[in-house]
Every structure is written in C-alpha cells, then in structure tokens.
C-alpha cells in the first residue's frame, strides 16, 4: 500500500493510500495529489542515498510521496 502524506501542523497527515491494482484508490489518490498541488504544495519522493526528487505527477509505484510547503530565504 502506497501513501501520500502532507507535512503540516500535526506532524504529517495521510491524504491518500492506494494500491496499484485498485483503480478506485488510485483515482482518489490522484485527486488528492492534484488538490494539494493546487494549494501550493510541492511533491517529493525520497530516492534514498541523499537524493530526493520533485515530482509533478503522482508516481503510482512509489511507497511514499511527501507533500511539502515551499521554502524561502528568511
């Protein structure tokens, strides 16, 4: 089961969970993903080994997709 989470004031919130073979859960996850992008969040996937990647589409084969807020110089 893959998860889409958003880092927020609660620590993080699970927005959607999906299984690649479950069309309904995938559709719900894609909708949640797009809604979060429209709110201004940035989607990240940890690639391990000190790597992370910014993704613009929900990567269905990933175990964990993290939505973060933009960063800015202080």
């Amino acid at each position: 089961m893959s998860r889409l989470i958003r880092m927020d004031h609660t620590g993080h919130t699970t927005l959607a969970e999906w299984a690649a073979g479950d069309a309904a859960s995938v559709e719900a996850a894609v909708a949640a993903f797009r809604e979060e992008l429209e709110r201004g969040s940035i989607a990240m996937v940890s690639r391990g080994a000190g790597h992370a990647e910014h993704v613009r589409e929900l990567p269905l084969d990933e175990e964990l997709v993290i939505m973060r807020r933009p960063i800015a110089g202080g």
Partner: protein
Amino acid sequence: MAAEPAIPAALPLGDGAASPGLPELATVAWRPRATAVRLERRGRLWTLTTVAHVVPFVLVAIAMLALSPLAAPVALVALAHAWIIPELYAQRGANVTRPRRRAADGPERVALGLLGDLIDHDARETHARTGLVPEPGRLGSWLVGEAGALLVTRRRVYCWCVKATGHDLPSGDRVAHLLLALRTDEEGFATVANLAFSGARWRLRRRLPARQRAALDACREE
C-alpha cells in the same frame, strides 16, 4: 496502526544535474545559480567587506591616540566598534541555527518520526544532541536546522537563512522541509537561501550554543 514505510538512509548528495531543479528557484529568478566558484567569490567579498568595516575604526583609534593621549576614550570607542561589528555579523550567522518555538508534544513526535525515516542512525544521534542534521554535499558539509543551514567548507562556513513557509510546523517537519529541498537540488538550495554570514569557522563557533559546536567540530574532522 500500520508501520511507517522505511526510507533509505542518507548517503552523500548525488549529481545535481540528474535531479530536476528546485521549484522555488522561480521565485528568485534574478539570482545567479550558486556554484562552488560563486560561493568562494561571495565568501571572499564577505571577508573584504568585514575588513572595510574594521580598518577605518582601527585607523581612527590610532590617529586619535597620535593626536593626543587625552583622546584615548574616543580611541577606545572606535576600537570597540572595530571589534563589535564582526561579532554582530557572526552572531547573525549563528542565529540561523537557533531553535524555533516548539509545537505540542504529539505533532513534534510525529514529525520527528518522519525526519528519522529520512536520515541514518548517526544523523539521528547528531540531531538529538544538537538539533542539526548533518548532510554531506558536493559544495561542502551541511548542517541543517529548523530555519537555516550551515555549509562548512575547508576554509570557511556559510550560514544560510531559509525556512519552510508558515509558522505552524513542528520542528522536525521544519528540518525535513529543508533537508528534502537540499537533497533535490543542492546548488538551487543555496540560491534560494539568503546568506546571513560567511567567515572562518572559529568566528561562528564561539557564537554557537555549546551543544551545536560539536556538530561543527565533527564537520572539521571530515
């Protein structure tokens, strides 16, 4: 409750060219992309600026004493200025690693769990002791805090002021935001962030809280 998916621990940052750039770069489109050469140049310029602030006050102090020993108090004031200006700059650099207001225990615990999944055992220990997450990079060694990061190179340290937007995030999430951005695009991260200070490590070290000095010292030993 389902177990959290395990995320592989961190190793040195890879080739930034292989990753897409940081999306936030669009908000600072006028800035040239930070590179090792540009950083070195900015560091030297920072040192030059500090010298330009200090030397006139020292010259004034010498001139006042040469004119009349009665002007010694004025000379002392000038010397105090020459001392305090570089110290204020170093303090500004140290402020980027200062812990921010904590959220409630529950959210802090959850956020710390996610951050813990993103980093390896040694980094978790360093974070627990110092509040900073060490992250090796191509530009140097990074120490990532809640509202800024230190880039430690062989000759100097760069203090970057940068944070996740919004003020309601738990401290672990604030660090995770910066860590993920740094891992996405190291040079882009240094471009988006604001440089608060650049100078010799010893200048910053004495302005850091005691518990964070160990993290800086560990970078020195690499």
